[in-house]
């Protein structure tokens, strides 16, 4: 509790040196403003990358990671191995590898029974070539159950033309990334020819174009139905290479993935593992921002410490008089500490405002043209958390910076001053 009279003295002190007070406040304002701006922008960036990453990464992906197991070999039969001979084979090659999940339908059925799994989307994927006159363009062709795929990645929202369900209604339909379509010079309704690695060719009719905003999706990927893909690869109807999952709670992915891997005997990657580099990028940006802002606030804190020390040197007489009048040490601490806190509070609030205005303006600035990322303006996150953290930071630094001078003031010996 602060006495009204201490409050009044503090006010008079602050107002009697407006310039100094304002300069001290501006230090805090600038520090907090930059903190808000940088946090908002960095967080905006992080969110943006994470969004993009999540928009193309399933929570969990189950697939057959082929193992090169050379324990058994045909070499022995060929060369007529005898117990005393060593046959060394350099650079062995596997004879045949099946990249599919053997009991895919069973696994899918089992997965669909599990409560915490929201979407199960099977996939047959292969690198194919699209013919464009004499040129062949390479792209990843995904055969999917388009309804599941839509639920997995929200494909409907990303369509530039056509609808995902068109794949179901049309014969040999294909969805293309808008950039790939541009390169192939086709539009909805046109025909494209895809060549599988095995040489099998199929003609598809373009029934929709989508736009994710990243080149890997828009330029190097296309969707067809599962059956068409199986046909193109010359495989049977239960040939599935991947199963992608969306969980009710994506945070559970890291725990759930190993369990699934063990259950089915295939590899299961969770989104966090797959995108560890993005997470690391976020962490680096966050750390960098905090360190920089800590430095800014430290400088503001030193400014206040300096100013308050000077103020107290100039107010030694006043302190002695107040003590002689019967003001106690805690009153003196209150009077001077509250000056710093007021500077901190007003400076911080102004800083929050400045930070908001700056980040708001930034969010209106167009992002420079970019081939690989589609983003119109600088990404900014207006999370109130950073405003709270900024306020607390501001008050904390000014409080600590003001406490030492205030304590010093309270220890002034009035007799030494009043003797003259």
């Amino acid at each position: 509790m602060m006495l009204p009279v201490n409050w009044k003295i503090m006010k008079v002190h602050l107002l009697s040196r407006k310039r100094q007070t304002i300069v001290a406040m501006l230090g805090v304002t600038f520090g907090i403003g930059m903190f808000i701006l940088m946090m908002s922008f960095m967080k905006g960036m992080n969110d943006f990358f994470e969004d993009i990453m999540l928009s193309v990464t399933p929570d969990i992906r189950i697939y057959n990671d082929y193992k090169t197991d050379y324990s058994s070999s045909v070499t022995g039969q060929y060369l007529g191995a005898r117990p005393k001979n060593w046959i060394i084979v350099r650079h062995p090659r596997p004879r045949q590898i099946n990249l599919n999940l053997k009991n895919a339908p069973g696994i899918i059925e089992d997965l669909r029974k599990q409560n915490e799994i929201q979407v199960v989307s099977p996939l047959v994927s292969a690198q194919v070539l699209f013919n464009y006159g004499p040129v062949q363009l390479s792209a990843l062709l995904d055969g999917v159950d388009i309804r599941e795929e839509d639920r997995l990645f929200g494909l409907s929202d990303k369509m530039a033309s056509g609808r995902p369900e068109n794949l179901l209604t049309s014969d040999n339909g294909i969805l293309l990334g808008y950039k790939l379509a541009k390169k192939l010079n086709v539009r909805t309704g046109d025909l494209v020819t895809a060549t599988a690695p095995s040489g099998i060719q199929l003609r598809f009719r373009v029934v929709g174009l989508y736009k994710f905003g990243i080149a890997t999706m828009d330029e190097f990927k296309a969707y067809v139905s599962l059956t068409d893909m199986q046909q193109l690869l010359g495989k049977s109807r239960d040939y599935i290479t991947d199963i992608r999952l969306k969980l009710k709670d994506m945070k559970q992915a890291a725990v759930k993935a190993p369990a699934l891997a063990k259950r089915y005997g295939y590899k299961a990657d969770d989104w966090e593992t797959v995108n560890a580099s993005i997470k690391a990028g976020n962490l680096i940006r966050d750390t960098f921002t905090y360190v920089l802002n800590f430095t800014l606030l430290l400088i503001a804190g030193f400014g206040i410490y300096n100013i308050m020390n000077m103020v107290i040197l100039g107010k030694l007489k006043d302190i002695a008089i107040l003590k002689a009048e019967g003001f106690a040490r805690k009153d003196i601490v209150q009077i001077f500490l509250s000056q710093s806190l007021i500077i901190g509070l007003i400076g911080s609030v102004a800083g929050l405002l400045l930070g908001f205005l700056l980040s708001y303006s930034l969010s209106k600035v167009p992002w420079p043209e970019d081939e690989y990322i589609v983003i119109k303006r600088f990404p900014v996150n207006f999370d109130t958390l950073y405003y709270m953290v900024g306020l607390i930071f501001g008050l904390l630094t000014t409080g600590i910076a003001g406490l030492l001078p205030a304590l010093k003031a309270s220890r002034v010996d009035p007799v030494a001053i009043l003797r003259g």
Partner: protein
Amino acid sequence: MSQQVLKAEKLNKYFHEPDTIHVLHDISMSVEEGEFVSIMGKSGSGKSTLLYLLSTLDTQYEGTVDINGTRVTGLPENAMARFRNEYIGFVFQFHFLLPEFTALENVMLPALKLGKRDHGAIEQQAMEKLRKMDLHQYAHKLSGKLSGGQQQRVAIARALINDPRIIMADEPTGNLDSANTANIFDIFNGLVQDGNTIIVVTHDHDFARKSTRILEMADGRICTNG
């Protein structure tokens, strides 16, 4: 029998910087209610030092001080400040006021700190004290803008605001010209007439002559007690 307002016993004071010196030797004294005590003596005899002990501003000493029946020696800092605020009025040689506050605010501050009355009542009372000092027309002037004599009168008004049990003054006229000195004399006379208890350190014999008792100090001892 009149009441004892202040009693000091066996006060000893040392300074340790630069060398240890013994500035007050076994000083014992008492002041009755309504008394006007002058402390005189050569420069350096320890008058100011004694007054700072009695006023509780200086706590580094041996011996005991009782004011208004309370043993102030050894009181905790907070209680000491509170006691000083309520029972002691102090006037310094260099009319110390807070320059950023008006004359009126300077007078009001100790009462606001005491907090026994509301703001309006305190303001009214402070105005009255200023009127007594013939300063009411300067009440709303910044104290730093007043002349030395005016400032000293504001300081006296401030010392009186909480109706202290004892008023202590250290050479209140030491820094003033003769006209202002005479003015302050008159004011102190008036205070005595009103029944205030006063201890004044002074070099001025005319001033001391008006008091009920003069304590003569020499080399940290009280030699005449008349």
